[in-house]
């Protein structure tokens, strides 16, 4: 996983914001290295992570695959059919959306990297380095820190140490993250 950010997509309203979302959906956008992980694997995680026969009635919080091209659309549809089989329902009964992504609008900065504000020195360093919201949202380092410090998921210690070493964090922050990350 190279980068993640949250935002709004799938609708038609121009210039959506959190307070004026229109017909868009809150979504996560994931940049990934296709030589390290396949789109199909991400789809599998997605289908395994929710119950596809029910969708909340509100467009803002819809379960959906937002495809970027026809190949992704095809894979989303084929994995949907597999998910329906697992759930014991017809593919026609799946309520999870499969829609073109359209324009993806970055959410407000305070929605990005949600775990980091409670780690004040990390927050200050990243805000100084990347004062613009889009830069911060596009930072692999910020994405990693958000996962290491906020996900509660165990990190591979060797990968963690290698990535921290290559990240460019000041030594004091590297030490802090190594102490706080779950391993």
């Amino acid at each position: 996983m190279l980068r993640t950010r949250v935002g709004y997509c799938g609708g038609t309203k121009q210039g959506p914001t959190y307070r004026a979302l229109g017909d868009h959906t809150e979504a996560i956008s994931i940049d990934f290295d296709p030589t390290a992980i396949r789109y199909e694997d991400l789809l599998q995680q997605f289908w395994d992570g929710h119950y596809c026969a029910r969708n909340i009635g509100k467009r803002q919080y819809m379960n959906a695959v937002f495809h970027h091209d026809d190949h992704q659309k095809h894979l989303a549809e084929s994995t949907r059919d597999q998910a329906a089989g697992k759930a014991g329902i017809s593919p026609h009964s799946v309520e999870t959306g499969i829609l073109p992504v359209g324009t993806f609008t970055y959410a407000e900065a305070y929605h990005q990297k949600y775990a980091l504000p409670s780690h004040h020195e990390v927050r200050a360093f990243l805000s100084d380095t990347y004062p613009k919201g889009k830069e911060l949202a596009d930072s692999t380092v910020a994405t990693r820190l958000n996962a290491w410090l906020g996900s509660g998921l165990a990190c591979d210690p060797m990968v963690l140490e290698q990535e921290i070493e290559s990240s460019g964090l000041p030594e004091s922050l590297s030490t802090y993250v190594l102490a706080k990350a779950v391993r």
Partner: protein
Amino acid sequence: MIGLNPLPNETLEVADGIPSAAKLPLDNSSSRLAFQTATFGLG
């Protein structure tokens, strides 16, 4: 800026497929990698 509260008059950007963060070494190296994007609504 990372924060808990909205910034006044913040202009939201749209995705253009170009990673914009490259000041830190890991960001610089990752911004040069070929990538694909997956997007999901998570309910």
